[in-house]
């Protein structure tokens, strides 16, 4: 399941809703991305996440389908926020649930790597010297390439 929203999410409530009554689940892995207060030597006062409505949902849906093809998952949730977020605020939630832990761990890492390189989001940081667009990290591309079959 995919959600793109302005509002914050409650991690515990999301996991409870996703897995309620699903007693075939033996392991749940959660990734929560949050806003840092620094980028290198620069202090970050806040960041604004812009996205491409429509394409975001389409790409996240394709990433979800790919994860479900690769691993036997009982449940999967991606929630990605947009708008202005301050340090400490949650940006993204990825939850994977499976009968056994290995599939849940691997699928969660796969999903995070791919949404960093495929989901059409852009971050504008507010620094001491003014606003600045975050540049894509080559390390993110390398991380995603691990999963190319």
């Amino acid at each position: 399941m995919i959600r793109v929203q302005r509002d914050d999410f409650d991690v515990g409530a999301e996991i409870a809703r996703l897995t309620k009554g699903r007693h075939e689940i033996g392991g749940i892995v959660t990734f929560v991305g949050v806003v840092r207060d620094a980028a290198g030597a620069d202090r970050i006062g806040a960041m604004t996440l812009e996205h491409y409505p429509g394409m975001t949902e389409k790409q996240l849906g394709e990433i979800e389908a790919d994860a479900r093809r690769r691993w036997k998952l009982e449940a999967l949730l991606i929630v990605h926020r947009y708008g202005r977020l301050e340090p400490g605020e949650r940006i993204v939630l990825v939850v994977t649930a499976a009968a056994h832990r290995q599939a849940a761990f691997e699928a969660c890492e796969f999903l995070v790597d791919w949404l960093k390189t495929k989901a059409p989001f852009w971050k504008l940081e507010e620094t001491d010297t003014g606003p600045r667009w975050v540049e894509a990290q080559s390390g993110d591309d390398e991380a995603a390439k691990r999963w190319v079959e």
Partner: protein
Amino acid sequence: MKLLYFAWLRAKIGTAEETVDVPAGITTVGHLLEWLKARGPRFADALQDASVVRVAVNQDYVPWDHPVQPGDEVALFPPVTGG
């Protein structure tokens, strides 16, 4: 053809969205980018380094040689930084 611009490409070009009639002969993403660059200094500046421009046609990532046609939704944006 509907054109969408995001992040610093939107800021440099000065608009988020426009509908354009592209001339006949503009049949690929590569043609379209060359045509856009010739539309004015803002476009030329925003699109001067093609290595930092990503293109989606109808909400799927495509390479430079991908076909475009009237009615397509074509989005131009920098490499993504989500997650």
